């Protein structure tokens, strides 16, 4: 039986097959591994399975009780072990799940929470100005009172920031130029 393809054609076919495998691998890695929805970055494991649903939704604790510097600083603040223990020295004071918390208060070694909302370091985001201008927590953080484990709902991409800045500039009759200026966020 004569050969269907000549050697150069066979080589080209092999290369094409290899390229196809590579392309599929790159697409698979991009879609199912690298994008935040699948990399676990949207809702990472925390050292203590803290439930915003329980604390905010069921108990009705104000955000600012724990994130106390949100009105005064660029950083909203993560409560110290002592703040957690204002209640948990009385409630669930011997629950095994809270052992890392008690250990932190005992030894002075801080807990290391996984960051969920991580902006690039070249963006200067300030919580205090957003809260002062009446932007609610829910606008960016979603309904945390329904989240057993905190997750990210906003893309936190630049287009997403700008959408809101443009909309608010129009609604509040502010200067669009100032609200969308490069140096407003990239200082």
């Amino acid at each position: 039986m004569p050969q269907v393809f000549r050697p150069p054609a066979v080589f080209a076919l092999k290369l094409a097959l290899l390229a196809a495998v590579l392309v599929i691998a790159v697409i698979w890695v991009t879609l199912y591994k690298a994008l935040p929805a699948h990399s676990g970055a949207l809702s990472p494991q925390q050292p203590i399975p803290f439930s915003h649903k329980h604390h905010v939704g069921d108990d009705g604790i104000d955000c600012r009780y724990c994130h106390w510097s949100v009105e005064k600083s660029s950083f909203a603040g993560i409560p110290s072990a002592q703040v957690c223990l204002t209640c948990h020295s009385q409630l669930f004071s011997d629950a095994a799940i809270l052992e890392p918390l008690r250990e932190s208060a005992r030894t002075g070694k801080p807990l290391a929470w996984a960051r969920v909302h991580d902006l690039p370091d070249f963006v200067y985001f300030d919580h205090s100005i957003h809260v002062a201008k009446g932007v609610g927590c829910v606008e960016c953080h979603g309904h945390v009172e329904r989240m057993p484990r905190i997750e990210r709902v906003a893309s936190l991409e630049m287009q997403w920031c700008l959408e809101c800045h443009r909309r608010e500039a129009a609604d509040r009759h502010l200067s669009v130029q100032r609200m969308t200026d490069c140096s407003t966020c990239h200082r």
Partner: protein
Amino acid sequence: MPSVKLTRRDFLKLSAASAALASAGCSPPAERIVPYARQPENELPGVPRFYASAASFVGAAEGVLIESNTGRPTKVEGNPAHPGSTGSTSIHGQASVLQLWDPDRSKAPRKRGQPATRAQFDRELNDVLTRIESRRGEGLRVLIGACDSPTLAAQLTALIHRLPEARVHRWDPLHRDRSHEGARLAFGEVLEPIARIEEAGAILSLDSRFLDDHPFRLNYARQFAAARTPRSACAAFTPSRARLRSPARWPTTDTACAWPTSKPGCSTRTKRSGATCSSIGASSSAASRSRRRRMPSSIA
């Protein structure tokens, strides 16, 4: 040449491993938030605190404001309320932040290059101090730079009082000994003359880099700049005209209208020239002072 035997299975295994590595590398780096275990009072993370302090230079204080972020000093800037700073800092002031906090600095004591514990250091220091104390301070020498801190002076006095045989040696390559000597000859006591550079029509500076390594340099620099700015539209523009003599190029000499150079080693002498003249720099060390009595005739 050694042959590499790679079976088909090995090849596939390696490909899978590299693909897994690549996919792991693609995910964004996980960042941690580390809150306080015990929150200090009045500390706002994200909002720096400023402390007013003073950086010592040539034995004079330079007022500084130190920015501190969650307890870490990160930046040193001038204190606008301090006359020696007027809101500016020098290169030395800027660099002094590394004296406060330097992540590269050794975090533990070392003994002969080997890490040691703090307790070990305390024990050995205690041994040495006991030995020195038993001899009323004989053999104890404190080496110190130019310093005008009254606190440190009081502490040193207390030390000498307690250990009368101890000695304190002061030396700083940048010193104002000759300037002070000149002031003592003129006024009978050691004084630091403060010039009103702003009001000068022309400045003749003899080997004094008053914009570079003078204790009042930041104030002088501000005055010098102000004098070169027309104060109003009708006033005539009268820039300060500085005439300087110095063997080396410095910012002070670069601002000068005229800069007649002198040979290195031809320092001026305070007594004969009569002008406020400081000899600063390693070239005018005490050891070589006697060699440098010659004076260029153009200065006198």
